[in-house]
């Protein structure tokens, strides 16, 4: 097992004592198969118990270990040390307020996510005895990719538009709304449109595309947003030029 000494620079912030964040460097003996999260755990266990960061699954599923690694939004549990030089800088996710060390305040994202009603709103109510809502593989394929989102918020950290205009609903929330809109069993599109087709919704997006480049689950939120724009534009034309056509 090969070991390498890594200088891990971590942005620290203690709201009780610090007026602004500062960098602290830890020298960490890293194994070849380690990810950045392992290095942080090493620090926490052996060098500095006060270091705060979030994680849970260590397998790119829970979405809680998102942070900036050398300036890029990454999952710390998916960022292999061997792909980096001897010095690695770790900072809290960009575009979010820093709560403490690598922990960010995520209330804004949670509220936005809830606002798009990211759950199935069935077209018609059916008693349980009537059986399940069926779906063909083709119908499933239509939205499958958007179900892979793990709410890690890397896309928000990559999105300059979210950084500049904090009201923007942002990539993952709209991609999830799109996921349910695309679902053959769902009838909630009109309710979601009010939120996602608004100015703070898709129209704040200028298609930088950074969200899709950093998404660890290949959700392609940028694609979802452009599709919502196109669908909303078609809605508008139907409503204003062909009011007799039902949506």
């Amino acid at each position: 097992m090969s070991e390498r000494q890594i200088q891990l620079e971590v942005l620290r912030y203690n709201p009780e004592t610090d007026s602004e964040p500062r960098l602290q460097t830890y020298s960490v003996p890293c194994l070849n198969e380690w990810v950045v999260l392992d290095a942080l755990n090493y620090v926490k266990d052996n060098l500095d118990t006060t270091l705060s960061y979030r994680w849970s699954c260590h397998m790119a599923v829970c979405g809680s270990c998102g942070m900036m690694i050398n300036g890029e939004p990454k999952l710390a549990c998916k960022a292999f040390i061997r792909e980096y030089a001897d010095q690695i800088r770790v900072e809290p996710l960009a575009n979010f307020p820093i709560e403490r060390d690598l922990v960010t305040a995520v209330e804004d994202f949670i509220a936005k996510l809830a606002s798009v009603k990211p759950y199935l709103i069935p077209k018609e109510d059916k008693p349980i005895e009537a059986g399940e809502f069926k779906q063909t593989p083709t119908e499933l394929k239509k939205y499958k990719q958007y179900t892979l989102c793990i709410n890690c918020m890397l896309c928000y950290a990559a999105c300059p538009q979210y950084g500049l205009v904090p009201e923007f609903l942002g990539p993952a929330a709209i991609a999830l709304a799109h996921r349910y809109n695309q679902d053959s069993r769902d009838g909630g599109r009109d309710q979601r449109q009010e939120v996602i087709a608004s100015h703070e919704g898709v129209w704040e997006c200028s298609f930088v595309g950074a969200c899709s480049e950093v998404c660890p689950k290949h959700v392609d939120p940028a694609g979802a947003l452009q599709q919502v724009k196109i669908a909303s534009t078609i809605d508008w034309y139907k409503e204003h030029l062909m009011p007799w056509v039902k949506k």
Partner: protein
Amino acid sequence: MGEEMSSKPYIREISKTNWFYGQPRYMRYMAREVTCIFIFAYTFLLIWALRALANGPEAYQAFLAALNSPLGILFNLAVLVGVVYHSISWFSLTPQAMPLQRGEEFVPGNLIIGAHYGGWAVVSLIVLFLGV
């Protein structure tokens, strides 16, 4: 939303004017957006051409001469480069915005991009035929 852990989360300010600077990903986006200026500039050239045409043969000849000057050629070359970059960068994004599902599979992105180049070629040929 839940109890905040700290009373003063730290907010990192972003520069409103040069946020894209030095970030290759954002710089590429800016290049795609900024090259639309070339299209804008070329429309002015077309308006100028129409005006020259309306002002009679002499004015039109003067316009043609200006076009053939080194400056005119340089302008056209710059516009060509800008417009080609703009178009290519947008075409490459089309599969994301307009995915096509056939049965259980999505049509490969390259086919969608290719169709756009095909359309571009057809329109260019029509313009060429109208011109000669």
